């Protein structure tokens, strides 16, 4: 039914949009592969691969620290938020309890509310409130705890949807067989939940690794800077003099996410199309 012209237009459009999606990242990748003495204008294919700008950016931008901080924060947030979300989602999805609607409502509110609004109170709160004499200001905890909070609101709603969709009969028969509440979760439901949990973890890891505003406000110690924060400072200090190094630093910050994305892209895409529709 469809003409060849239509097919041609479709291919042309999808190729243009795909090229446009790749272009900005490719252009800084090529820029990064040049030496800073090369006069680069526009989009130039590098003659030879030159990694000096990556080396300089890595040391001068302090990205060893940046990687370490981002990894600590992103992994802790993902693990803790995933555990809390599975537990909360299990209760919200399979049990009726006093206040269940309130808890669910708060979680949905947590997804849509801008966490940007929490930044000021968090900064002054960490400065002035020291529970049990512990100073959280300018530590990894200052980044980890608030991000568990925001991630849990998404995660609990996400896992609730999964547990609600699980067949009631499966849960009920396990209960009748005498499985404990924990047993139902760990032996019956979790094995099936693995793809849903992985998708959730991938999304939380992505958001946490990329997070910028919290780190900008809550971290002053250069050793504890996350990778995106390090890039922001590096770019504003070196910006004018050396573009190739800024480009290399950008690639360094994006690299872990790009690797995870290529390996697990199915989960990103599913997370967005299914999760977004539910939320």
């Amino acid at each position, binding site marked *: 039914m469809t003409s060849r012209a239509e097919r041609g237009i479709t291919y042309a459009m999808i190729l243009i949009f795909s090229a446009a999606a790749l272009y900005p990242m490719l252009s800084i990748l090529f820029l990064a592969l040049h030496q800073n003495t090369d006069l680069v204008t526009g989009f130039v294919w590098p003659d030879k691969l030159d990694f000096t700008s990556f080396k300089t950016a890595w040391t001068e931008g302090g990205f060893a620290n940046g990687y370490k901080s981002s990894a600590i924060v992103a992994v802790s947030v993902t693990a803790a938020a995933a555990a809390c979300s599975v537990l909360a989602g299990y209760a919200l999805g399979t049990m009726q309890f006093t206040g269940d609607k309130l808890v669910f409502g708060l979680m949905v509110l947590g997804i849509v509310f801008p966490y940007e609004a929490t930044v000021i109170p968090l900064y002054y709160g960490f400065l002035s409130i020291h529970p049990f004499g512990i100073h959280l200001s300018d530590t990894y905890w200052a980044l980890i705890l608030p991000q568990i909070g925001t991630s849990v609101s998404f995660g609990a709603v996400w896992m609730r949807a999964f547990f609600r969709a699980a067949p009631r009969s499966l849960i009920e028969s396990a209960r009748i067989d005498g499985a404990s509440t924990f047993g139902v979760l760990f032996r019956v439901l979790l094995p099936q939940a693995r793809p849903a949990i992985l998708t959730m973890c991938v999304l939380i890891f992505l958001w946490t690794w990329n997070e910028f505003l919290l780190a900008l406000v809550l971290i002053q110690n250069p050793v504890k800077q996350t990778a995106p924060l390090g*890039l922001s400072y590096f770019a504003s200090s070196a910006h004018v003099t050396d573009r190739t190094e800024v480009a290399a630093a950008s690639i360094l910050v994006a690299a872990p996410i790009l690797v995870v994305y290529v390996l697990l892209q199915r989960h990103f895409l599913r997370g967005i*199309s299914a999760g977004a529709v539910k939320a």
Partner: protein
Amino acid sequence: MTSHDSTTSDAGAQPLGRTGIRRLGRRRARERAPGEPGSLVAWLFVLPGIAIFAVFTMAPLLYAMGLSFYDWDGLTPKRFIGLANYREAFADPTIRATFLHVVELFAFYTFLPIAFGLLLTALLTRSPIRGLTFYRTVLFLPATIAGVVVAQAWIWIYDKDGPLNAGLRAVGLGSFAQAWLGSFTWALPAVGLVGTWVSYGLCMVLFIAGAQRISPSLYEAARVDGAGAFREFFAVTLPGLRGEIAVALMLTTINALRSFDIVWNTTQGGPGGTTTVPSVLMYLNAFTYNRVGYASTIAVMLAVSILCIIGVIQFFSERGDRR
């Protein structure tokens, strides 16, 4: 006849009976099925998550609301000033300009990505192509990259020696070449276009997935009725994607309202305040001008406008569903 009667009465009675039991169960402090956990157990499961959420997300939000009624520089004692911050904010031309910037950003963050997404989806429903999984992966890529990195890539594209100007010079339009992010006229559209780049693939992926759930029989029926490409799009594809469009609207308008990373790392709100957005203005007030109470007022206004937009979109998409 009797058997038929009994089945119909059964079928009619069963749902009624079930809801009846459920209602009773709710009224009489929970008659639980064997092994069904009680409220206390359920709360133990919810507790770790809700506790962290309450302390580190909910409480700060409430505290921000509280701070918005104070005059505070962050150091000296707070002074309660009631609604004075709000009165000032509504009369403040900077804040008005900031929210107007967001309205302009909607065109780039929301309208263009959704339009591009619908265009591509319409084409794909007419002529499916091979390798769609690959294209989806590529299209979605921009949405996964950190805002700080995205900003650096586009700073280079808009640079005076960057690809955009080089392209203009190559086609003989060198007189248009300029430092785009430094221009009072072009900085905001330039930042907006970055938002378009981040979101259009996401919209496409959403819409393509949605279109795959539309029953092929609807398209067959439309084609039998002799509908052309346009009729087919407006009669089948567009109504079928209502849910996805509502989601895309919400995601992209919220992104425009709360955008911080990209704006901060490209222009910091400049030049001359032509690209300020609410979160940037909030940050500047709190940490540069030391007006913490006023910054909290901006935070509350940002949160309220997001809630309003979500409310409006929900209202229209639900009304559409009922029709």
